[in-house]
């Protein structure tokens, strides 16, 4: 079962960024950000770090799954 990454969506909205804005900032396609948010794609640690740095969050805050 895929789990939606609502934390990423919330952090992105908090920064007032659209999927296209975030994708452009981290150097990936908009569809890749969409897939991560929908839980269809597990990004590499490199991309996770890049997203976290862009959004000013830690890995735990965005990618750690709560029980």
């Amino acid at each position, binding site marked *: 079962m895929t789990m939606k990454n609502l934390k990423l969506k919330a952090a992105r909205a908090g920064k007032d960024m*659209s*999927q296209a804005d975030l994708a452009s900032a981290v150097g990936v396609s908009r*569809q*890749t950000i969409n*897939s991560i948010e929908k839980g269809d*794609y597990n*990004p590499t640690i490199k991309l996770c770090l890049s997203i976290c740095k862009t959004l000013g969050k830690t890995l735990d805050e965005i990618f750690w799954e709560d029980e």
Partner: protein
Amino acid sequence: MGPVYYISMFLVVLIICFLCVTLARKCHSDGGKAKYDERQILARGKGYKYAFYAAVFVSFLPIVIPDNIVHFLGSIIYFVPLFVGIMVYISYCIWNDAYLEINLNIKSWIIYMVLIGLFNICLFLLHIKTGYVENGVINISVVNLMMGILCFIVLVELIFKYAFDKRREADDDEEFEA
């Protein structure tokens, strides 16, 4: 058609390939390296795998289809697995958002596909006078028709995907604004 014809045709194809590669390299500031992100590279790899399986499967079809059809198809039969493989690969990549590079303009790509498709259809139609069947064997010019059809299938898929993406992007934006 003597050897001079084949050598000149080979040289023409070689020059066209060289021009295409040079043009492609000029379009990229980093020396022709395509820009795909990690998810796209992964999807393209899977696409290659499925295309390979499809091509291998289709290449075994002459065993089961009747001999008269195999004879009628002639050398075209060797192109069929190639075209099926390419079709599977492109379709998989298009529907997994891995066909076009990051930030590549889909509209310019659609124009390329229309031009290549029309060029191949025109080449096919040039043989209309001589006919497409010689001694009960289909002419090699049918490869141009296959290529034209392939381009138009890719074109239709790209347009559908573009429209689908636009709608999804609009939904995401609405959700974002809300």
